[in-house]
């Protein structure tokens, strides 16, 4: 079953990370292949992205349901393909990581000619934890840790239908390289903000 997990650290405090990612409108336009998204209530949203496997690109529509929303800590979700036989689930977790952040080993380069679609999918999933209720940033900041943050991410995607073994085989090696790309883009945004505020350079990122 295709699945990926990674974690990374940032000097950005938990409150800052949470403040940014809790609102999908903040980051939706950054999504590779992003075409549109639509809120369907407190926990449900519909997303349209252009997914690219490297061989073939296709417009894919997903329904995303947030199943757990723990303020400043964890979001879990499910996803279901509307025009593709695909389903999955994932989670995002956040915790304080100390003032300097922790260094994770650098991710090993992996082949991934078919990976772009799943990169986009995983990016989408990562950002879906913003599908819940909007919160007051000041309230969130009040409970934040003073140091950096560790972000953890897990995504499982499973194709359905007769072609499932083939599609899953394409997904499996493609999910790994997602981590580095995800981490770098999120950190670039968060730590860019820190630099603007004079908080220092990025602490590094990693995937496992």
């Amino acid at each position, binding site marked *: 079953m295709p699945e990926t997990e990674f974690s990374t650290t940032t000097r950005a405090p938990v409150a800052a990370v949470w403040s940014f990612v809790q609102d999908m409108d903040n980051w939706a336009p950054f999504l590779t292949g992003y075409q549109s998204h639509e809120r369907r209530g407190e926990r449900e949203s519909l997303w349209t992205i252009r997914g690219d496997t490297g061989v*073939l690109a296709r417009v894919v529509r997903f329904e995303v349901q947030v199943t757990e929303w723990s303020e400043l800590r964890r979001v879990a979700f499910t996803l279901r393909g509307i025009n593709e036989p695909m389903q999955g689930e994932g989670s995002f977790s956040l915790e304080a990581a100390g003032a300097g952040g922790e260094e994770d080993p650098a991710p090993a380069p992996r082949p991934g000619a078919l990976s772009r679609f799943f990169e986009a999918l995983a990016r989408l999933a990562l950002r879906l934890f913003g599908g819940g209720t909007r919160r007051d940033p000041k309230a969130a900041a009040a409970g934040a840790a003073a140091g950096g943050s560790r972000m953890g991410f897990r995504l499982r995607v499973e194709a359905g*239908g007769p072609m499932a073994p083939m599609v899953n085989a394409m997904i499996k090696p493609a999910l790994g390289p997602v981590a580095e790309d995800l981490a770098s883009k999120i950190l670039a945004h968060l730590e860019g903000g820190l630099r603007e505020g004079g908080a220092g350079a990025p602490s590094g990122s990693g995937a496992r």
Partner: protein
Amino acid sequence: MARKPAAGGSFDLEVDVVAVGSGLGGISAAIAARDRGAEVAILEKAGKLGGVSAYGGGEVFVPNNHKMREAGIADSDAAGRRYFEFLSAGFHSPAHLDRLLATMHEAVEYMGKEAGVRWLSVRQLPDYYYPHAPGSAAEGRYLSAELFPGAELGAWQGKTLLTPHVPPGVLHEDLYRMGGLAKVTEWDYELIARRIEQDLRGFGPGLMGWFLKAALVDRKIPAFAGSPVRELLVDDEGAVVGVCASREGTDFRVRARRGVVLAVGGYDWNPEMARYFESVPDWNSACPPTLQGDAIVLGTEVGAALAAVPSTNLAMFFGYNIPGEESEGAPLFRSSWECGCPHAIWVNRAGRRFCDESFYKDYQPRLREWDGRRQTRDNWPPFLIFDQNYRERYPLGSFLPGQELPPELVVVADRPRDLAAQLGIDPEGLEATLERFNQHAARGEDPDFGRGAYPWCARLTGDFSYPNPNLAPLDKPPYYGVRLVPVSVGINSHGLKTDTRARVVHVRGHPIRGLCAVGNSAALLDLGGGYQSGTSNMRAITWGYIAGRHLAGD
């Protein structure tokens, strides 16, 4: 007077031979030249290597080939020649065909023995026109390659083209064992999954894998992807002495002490060339978007002559673009194989059938038919019509039975006349057509167009659970319709004029020193007015071999 790009100045790289293009033509030339002692470099416009050759079915059509002999399949050179002469319909150059036939076995066997290409003879796949054409054969003339382990490409593994047009990790024998293109719901996806995990490549990517490994890994020929050649460099006497390419945003000048081989395919993605040379009102391509007529631009800029064969019956399929589907950054056009499956037909705007839909060699010229009194093409565009029987059994592109079909592409209605109205087809015409077609199709017969008469069509798209694998009635609502568009596979009617040593010929009639053209960059003077799967790959290998040896001093 032709402009002469300056050959003076410094060079970033100096070699004996530059192969422009990394499909079969360019790579075969590179291998042949290298093996004769030449220093070689390969320049490729795309970011990945492999060209159109990696995008296709990977068939290499060689009558009386060595693998047939090993398998005990009877054939002869004389029969092969008769078949090629049938294909050409009198439009070939005898000298070019002679050279092709005299060299193809040597070239293909050389690539097996010296370059490590592991050839297979494809069984159960007849010539297009078998058994109706002189010299045609029931099987064995198509060569393909064994599954190629992608890891053997080393650093190039992720920089070679794969294809969206054929299933990954599959050979012809696997496909036929699984039931063929029509039986996509019954394929062994566990087997395919295992091969994907091992990066075992079949069809075009597999064939190109063996050639690329021979050139890049075994011979260590330097290759530069993402390096489009912008101009040929000529000396004061008009000889081509190098190229100027673009690489990483700057000029990349490569001196070619002995010459340049243009092997960049045709002009599928050059709308102006396609319009003027192919003479059809619309043009789309299943090929990578780098096929932009570069050979014609580069060649004519140094005085090359063009040559042409009739476009009437080369390799123009019809198909569609599923909205939003792209490949290599361009809309992905799929050839419509649906028309060869049971429970599907084509009609024109009058609602009438006009061809054997299962055989593109029949439908292609009929689509071009011109009513000179009304100045119209009455069969253009064709409409694919199928019923619920079809939907329950066969795919539409990558959409399997049960999957939602995109409404932007597919029209649905409970009655044929309502479907016709939505598509802009004459309702009475479509109803009458279905009534007659169904009456005969129920018996596996098509007295109007003889659908099912060519075994190649049955092998390609047929369902062998039917008495006539290409034919069955459309009698279960709802009905579905798709307006189709032309989809070329890169076999164009115009190209650079070459001589029998693959040298490009100047408009004044003499060969241009230091310039060869092969594959689909060269006009189809050897094949004339016909085409058959695998001939394009065969002539790319053969003429590439000829050009490489010639430039290396043969």
